[in-house]
């Protein structure tokens, strides 16, 4: 577990900012984090954030295919669990790094560098 590495929260927008089943790239300029972050709205409506680069090769997970609470990489179709970043199938073998998202009132807050906690 990473601790104490997190950056201050970034207000990304309202909870209506993404349609369920879509994603958005949050560039480093927005987050202050050293890597691009993918923001995902699962088909369930919940928001999640992962490092945008696939742990397998060079692909952007925010360009992937969301199904339920999973994201499928657009390149070689490894699937990752959005809530905890767990890799669900090959060819990737490493989990994706999560970032905490908090929905406060109708705002989506991203905590870059702070791991998500499963609730």
């Amino acid at each position, binding site marked *: 577990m990473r601790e104490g590495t997190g950056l201050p929260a970034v207000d990304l927008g309202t909870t209506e900012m993404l349609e369920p089943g879509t994603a958005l790239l949050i560039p480093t300029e927005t987050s202050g984090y050293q890597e691009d972050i993918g923001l995902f709205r699962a088909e369930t409506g919940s928001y999640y954030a992962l490092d945008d680069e696939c742990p397998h*090769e060079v692909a952007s997970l925010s*360009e992937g*295919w969301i199904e339920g609470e999973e994201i499928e990489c657009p*390149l070689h179709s490894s699937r990752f669990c959005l809530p905890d970043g767990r890799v669900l199938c*090959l060819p990737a*073998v490493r989990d994706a790094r999560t970032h905490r998202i908090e929905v406060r009132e109708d705002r989506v807050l991203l905590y870059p560098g702070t791991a998500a906690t499963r609730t």
Partner: protein
Amino acid sequence: MSIESILVIGGGLAGFTVAQNLRARGYAGALSIIDPAGIPYDRPPLSKAYLLGQKDTAGIALAPAEWYAEHRVELIRGTVRKLDTEYLGVELADGRRVHADRLVLATGGSPRPLPIPGGDLETVLALRNKEDADVLREKTTPGMRLVIVGAGLIGAEVASSARTLGAEVTLIDPVDPPLVPAVGQALARRLHAMHLDAGITLVHGTPVDISKTTHGHSLILDDGRSIDCDEVLVGIGIVPNTALAQAAGLETENGMLVDENQRTSNPLIYAVGDMARTRNPDGSLERRGEHWEYAMNTGATAAAAILEQELPVHGASWFWSDRHGTHVEGVGDMNGVGATVLRLAGEDPIAAFHLAEDGRMLGAASIDGGLTIRAARRIIDRGIIVPPESLADPGIALKKLAR
């Protein structure tokens, strides 16, 4: 009778997947994988990132070394030389014997040798294993002249990687353009042209002879042309590794015959991956699937079948290929009776969809198509009918049509 031990012969993707799925499905008995290579690794990077030196041995492992201990999967380093169907088990090349309640054959394929004089020279290269990739990498130095026979998936990928490494590459194929069965005519032509743009010499022809010269090799083509080079790599497909099974009297026919459970003609022996070939209940034979996902799917099916659990459902077959900085994907069948609809970006075809007469999608292929093929998979698997005009319109994301 409960199953207490399972032995997987071959630790490629298919064999590894069997073991992984057996554990995920709750099998707690003894479980071993026999392979001369030791820790199972992934093959697609051998012609791409591994050949280019962007991934190392650890980077292509299918699971980290600890995984095997954590999941009590024993890795037996060795080569099986004989199957014992009476007292179920195997004999290794070093004489060791291992027995189990179930056997899974996952021996993959071997590069098909070029059936011409000199095609069997020891110095003629092929690419199937990590060792092959190491040899190829060592020989592929800037300026070296590499001739690749066969411009299919592996030939094309090696051509791209070797070019990146600075080699002078000549790609020979008797068919122009190659890969039409996989991606259709239009995309095949565009893909083939990319080799020219990368500075690769394309030769349309058939080699009839390979010989060694003082410095390298010389090829003679059927029209009398001769080509001198340093190294020759042959990539014309594989032959399934069924010798063990055949010697043991199991039914094979250009592949280890299996039913929908991946079970062979011996009910205690299963077969998966590149070496397996499905025989339908009516006796007809499917083509062998020689792609990555097929190896994973058949491994998952075998694990479920061995444990007598419900079989997983798999969709239309899918493959990818990465070369010249582009990503190619195909799903389903591009060859059945029907018509092909193209999607263009400017002049370039970026996707092809193959439709049956009743409008159902049979297959699709794309070049850098993003989620196009993912969406096409869903359209095919769910039998969604999409108007051809929408398929042809690059302004409409296929994902929208698949929901």
